[in-house]
């Protein structure tokens, strides 16, 4: 395997549970050092995909390789060489930080000076020197998450799979967690992350949009946003936003309208509809209404892509 060969390759990867298809013919490739985001709502098939890639669940169709190893036939070899941080809490709350690290290192077969050195690395990387002898149950959520991440990296895996790693922690802790992922990726570690937070997805090099078991789009965040022609997303500020919203919803050429505080966010099917929108808003929303063209958010993209896919299916 050459240095630039993809670390993960999935082709037509599928998994069915009885009649229910959780993952439906998903294909993608992840190059080394990339932060690869898997974005989707709950039940979209993200966890099922990650479990197949980690050798925890056998595919029922298609195939996938991780580090050149087949997920169906070489699961044991894959487990030795990857890091995995599960959605559920993966540390022992009745053990200290050091004891947890020693255990997880031992579970990966590390010992002696090697494990001691890696524990030091992990504690320094996660920034928890002062808490090394603290029981994990007494750590704040953000610390636990960083600890779980470095615990999954003790055996120096070239790729780490993170399944919704920041559930239930505050935004500041999430930011620190992602700084850590950036740092690791800069060092060459590939990070495969599932999330349903848009702000987290924005920090990925490339994002795969998953919905109902299918991969709907896959690209960098700026490229995904170019689905919309410039001027398609307009922010409206006016005196009577509720009345304006009701009117805009009935207007032709409007894909979506949503209220954010005092402002309305309108997604247009064509930028040319902006003129008609301006007239309508001044008429219904009261005097002094303002229209500003804004960048589409990842959420706009996500909603648009799902609507398009479902429209096609219907």
């Amino acid at each position, binding site marked *: 395997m050459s240095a630039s060969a993809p670390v993960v390759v999935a082709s037509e990867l599928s998994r069915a549970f009885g009649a229910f298809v959780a993952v439906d013919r998903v294909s993608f490739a992840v190059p080394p050092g990339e932060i690869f985001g898997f974005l989707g709502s709950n039940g979209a098939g993200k966890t099922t995909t990650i479990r197949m890639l980690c050798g925890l669940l056998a595919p029922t169709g298609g195939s996938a390789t991780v580090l050149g190893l087949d997920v169906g036939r070489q699961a044991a070899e894959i487990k030795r060489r990857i890091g995995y941080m599960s959605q559920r809490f993966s*540390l022992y709350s009745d053990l200290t930080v050091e*004891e947890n690290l020693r255990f997880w290192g031992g*579970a990966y077969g590390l010992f002696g000076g090697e494990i001691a050195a890696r524990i030091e690395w992990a504690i320094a990387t996660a920034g928890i020197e002062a808490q090394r002898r603290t029981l994990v149950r007494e750590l704040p959520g953000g610390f636990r998450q960083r600890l779980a991440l470095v615990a999954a990296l003790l055996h120096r895996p070239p790729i780490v799979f993170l399944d919704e790693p920041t559930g239930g922690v505050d935004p500041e802790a999430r930011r620190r967690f992602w700084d850590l992922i950036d740092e690791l990726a800069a060092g060459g570690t590939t990070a495969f992350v599932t999330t349903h937070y848009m702000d987290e997805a924005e920090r990925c090099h490339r994002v795969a949009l998953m919905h109902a078991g299918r991969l709907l789009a896959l690209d960098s965040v700026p490229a995904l946003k170019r689905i919309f022609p410039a001027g398609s997303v307009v922010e409206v500020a006016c005196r009577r936003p509720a009345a304006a919203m009701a009117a805009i919803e009935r207007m032709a050429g409007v894909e979506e309208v949503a209220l954010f505080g005092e402002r309305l966010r309108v997604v247009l099917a064509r930028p040319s509809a902006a003129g008609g929108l301006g007239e309508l808003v001044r008429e219904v929303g009261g005097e002094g209404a303002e229209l500003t063209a804004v960048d589409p958010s990842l959420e706009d993209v996500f909603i648009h892509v799902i609507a398009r896919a479902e429209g096609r299916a219907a």
Partner: protein
Amino acid sequence: MLRRTLAIALKELLQLRRDPRTAFTLLAMPVLLLFIYGYALSFDVQHIRLAVVDEDGSRAARDVTDAFLRSGYFDLVGYGHDARALDPMFASGAAQAAVVVPPRYGDDLAARRHTQLQFVLDGSDSQTATTILAYARQIVASLSPVARTGGGEGAVVGLPLVWYNPDLASARFLVPGLLAFIMMVTAVIATALAIVREKERGTMESLRATPLVAIELLAGKTLPYLLVSFVAASTSLALANLLFQVPVRGSLLWLALVMLLFLAVSLGWGIFISTLAETQQVAFQLGLLSSMLPTLLLSGFIFPISSMPPALQVITHIVPARYFLVALREIVLKGAGPEVWWNQALGLVAYGTVVLGLATVRTVRSL
């Protein structure tokens, strides 16, 4: 392989140290149970409340009372001359047994005429009544002039000689069974809970993603409990020796071997249960039910297997404590070597192989 197993075992011991409740249950509970059951569970009948009705009043009649009291089993709760006084005493439970000495008892005895003593007994607790009756027969036999003269006219008097447990103290019979019972219950539950806890807390999923294979996981999980249970069992046995004078006549090495075999079976059973249960509560109940009742009822702990109906005797073969108990009693009470109990040990080995094999297969499937 060894390193990963050791990592789990070490972690398990650390967690046990942080969890005083479980550590207490494993180490102190056996001792406590032994103490409680050892004193409460006894088939020895003592302090039998005896009433004496003396309708004769002779010296020989007083000898009868003396003989009963001297035996050490009876306490005199009433003495009178009218048998009608017995009714209220039995009804209220003030008396459990009564001897009625008939009129002219002394004269008849002196004249070597045939005479009878009447023994009245509360039969509502049949087991106790049977024991009391046996005591009474022995005492009365000693009063008979035939017995007293040592067999003059050709009468044969049986002189019982009881081996291994000369005073037939039930503690000697019961404590080994109690030990088996306690070991089985604690080992099964401790192992089952230790594994199911990982499922419940979600750490099992992370363990699955490591290179740990089922055998390493199971070995690492059970070895600490094997150690702890072994220490608890040895302590209990030492205590039984001190408190209940249960002897340890056989080789300690053989004793340790048989105990370890039995513990391995118990732990295997615990692992098997962990593959059936998803929560600690279910594991606890399954563990308790499947280890306690069969060991209590079908292992020969309290009820001898030889006196069970044939169908039930067949069923006792699936109770692991059955094999352990026979071997344990042989070693502890009789000092017997492996030539006597090898088939019981073999039974445990076979049982352990099947249970551990089954448990491993099921764990591999669930991993």
